[in-house]
């Protein structure tokens, strides 16, 4: 999308929000249509459950409907919607039994005293094309993302999957830009390591994640 297009979309969205705040219900329908897929996708990626994602999407759409007048336009409207979506998803997750997270540090690269890589690094980046669209590969990737600790996962989903800018992610999560960058880098390192176990294994025998 071009920069001008983005700017125009943002303007159109601001107008919709103002119209809805003034009581125009058609504007609300348009906002709901624009955002329901984003809300559903983010909550589904966090919870990996259709029913829960549906509940959260309903709840968020209802909050948008009832609380639109509490949105003051200090941050982007999208940031506000993502923040509400995250809160609703976390409430839902908290009510369920949680599996213990694995420590991210175990999966970060290791170096010797001189700062050189200690493990053997295989370049599997060329092996992925034929595997990308198989169901097995998709499941492996989802499983790896599910294993990310919450703090890193949410930054990864907002920035790399939903495509928000670093600044907007900081805005949604109330984090500084260096903090966003550092969490995202850790998430990518973690995922790289997890996927290496699968893609880097010899072709005759696929590795387990």
């Amino acid at each position: 999308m071009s920069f001008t297009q983005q700017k125009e979309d943002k303007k159109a969205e601001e107008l919709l929000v103002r119209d809805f705040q003034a009581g125009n219900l058609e504007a609300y329908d348009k906002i709901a249509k624009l955002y329901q897929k984003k809300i559903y996708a983010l909550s589904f990626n966090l919870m990996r459950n259709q029913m829960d994602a549906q509940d959260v999407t309903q709840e968020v759409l209802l909050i948008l409907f009832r609380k639109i007048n509490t949105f003051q336009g200090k941050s982007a409207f999208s940031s506000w919607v993502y923040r509400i979506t995250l809160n609703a998803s976390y409430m839902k997750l908290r009510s369920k039994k949680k599996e213990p997270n694995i420590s991210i540090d175990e999966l970060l690269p290791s170096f010797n005293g001189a700062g050189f890589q200690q493990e053997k690094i295989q370049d599997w980046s060329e092996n992925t094309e034929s595997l990308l669209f198989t169901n097995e590969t998709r499941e492996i990737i989802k499983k790896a993302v599910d294993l990310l600790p919450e703090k890193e996962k949410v930054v990864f989903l907002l920035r790399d999957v939903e495509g928000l800018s670093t600044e907007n992610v900081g805005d949604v999560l109330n984090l500084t830009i260096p903090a966003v960058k550092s969490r995202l880098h850790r998430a990518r390192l973690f995922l790289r390591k997890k996927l290496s176990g699968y893609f880097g294994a010899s072709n005759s025998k696929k590795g387990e994640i």
Partner: protein
Amino acid sequence: MICCKECIDLLYDYFEGSLDQDTTQSLDEHFQECPPCVAFLNTYKVTTVLCRDTLNQIEIPDEVRHTLKNFLKEHKNE
């Protein structure tokens, strides 16, 4: 020459293109002489693409879309 650890710590900014010229050059020099770091760089890059392309394919299932539509209709008449 910078070591592998420094190189990997800076990968994020290297991809964003936010490093100054001298640092970028130091990384490029390191990559020329360090195949493990090149492998790391390539797989770091492809990991992001793979995960993004897998996770952003999520669509709202038809039955959920239907439920949401009815839900909105109901609540707008409150």
